[in-house]
């Protein structure tokens, strides 16, 4: 049986979700998106620059068949996030939203109170809500109770590349909810993505680690492999950690004994 995961009514095979920001140019982004094997791609909603209405649109560079996940990035209140989500739905003709309500400019940490509030409104309006959250299991449970389709705790601050700062919290969080848990933000390199999957994340969402790598296309391949390796290791079941050695070769039948 294929190893798939579900989000609302959709079924996905790839467990890597990728962003579209910060790429040096659209052609590089397009090749990186293809190399990542991702099926879901995040996009932001912003005012159209009315002085440049003839410019190439981002959408023309996103490979056909990818599912768009509009975000509410840089929204600092529940109201702003709700308005942005509605505009994103009107733009994308889809009901998915990566819900962000930010509480602090320096860390971009979520405002969990605003997040839960906005989630309730959007769930009522029929959105499939995927909230970007901190790694607090209690908040995750509140988001699940609010009707969110998934919970997306951060591994570390957005764009920081610090890796998973609190794998123990992430593990507890994954035990605390039944909805899919995606690790969103903080991944710096392929081993971070693998660790997230080994912990039991359903998927990993990243942008900067690929877009700002020296070679974004090669890094997209690396992330794809990292996610796949981590997922397989999780399914395979790792050995317990031991303090002392456990010999791999027989300790009997040695010559001269």
């Amino acid at each position, binding site marked *: 049986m294929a190893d798939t995961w579900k989000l609302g009514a959709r079924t996905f095979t790839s467990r890597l979700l990728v*962003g*579209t*920001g*910060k*790429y040096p140019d659209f052609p590089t*982004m397009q090749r990186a998106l293809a190399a990542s094997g991702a099926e879901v791609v*995040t*996009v*932001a*909603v*912003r*005012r*159209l620059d*009315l002085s440049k*209405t*003839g410019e190439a*649109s*981002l*959408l023309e560079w996103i490979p056909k068949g990818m599912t*768009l996940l*509009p*975000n509410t*990035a840089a929204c600092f209140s529940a109201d702003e996030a709700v*308005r942005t989500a*509605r*505009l*994103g739905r*009107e*733009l*994308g003709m889809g009901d998915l939203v990566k819900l962000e309500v930010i509480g602090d400019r320096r860390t971009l940490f979520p405002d969990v109170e605003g997040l839960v509030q906005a989630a309730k409104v959007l769930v009522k309006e029929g959105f499939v809500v995927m909230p970007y959250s901190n790694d607090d299991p209690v908040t995750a449970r509140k988001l699940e109770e609010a009707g969110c389709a998934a919970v997306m705790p951060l591994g570390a601050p*957005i*764009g920081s590349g610090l890796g998973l700062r609190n794998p123990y919290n992430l593990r507890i969080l994954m035990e605390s909810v039944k909805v899919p848990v995606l690790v969103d*933000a903080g991944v710096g390199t392929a081993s971070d993505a693998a660790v997230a999957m080994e912990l039991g994340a359903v998927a990993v*969402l*990243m*942008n*900067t680690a690929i877009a700002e790598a020296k070679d974004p296309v090669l890094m997209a391949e690396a992330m794809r492999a990292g996610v796949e390796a981590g997922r397989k290791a999780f399914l395979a079941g790792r050995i317990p950690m031991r303090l002392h050695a456990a010999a791999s070769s027989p300790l009997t039948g040695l010559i001269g004994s």
Partner: protein
Amino acid sequence: MQVRLNGELRELPDGLTVTALLAHLGVKAQRVAVELNDAVVTKDRYEAQKIGPGDSIEIVAFVGGG
């Protein structure tokens, strides 16, 4: 008439519909979403929706983001 368009005060011909506004600005309707006084205007209402003096309009599109 004066309106607030993407945060800036702007002079527009009187009695524009959303369809006419987008044409006036040279914007392709299928690439954008429009908000009038904080509420989304769905595409099926572009033709009928009139814009009045003092209205606040937001025209948005998808850009790269994570």
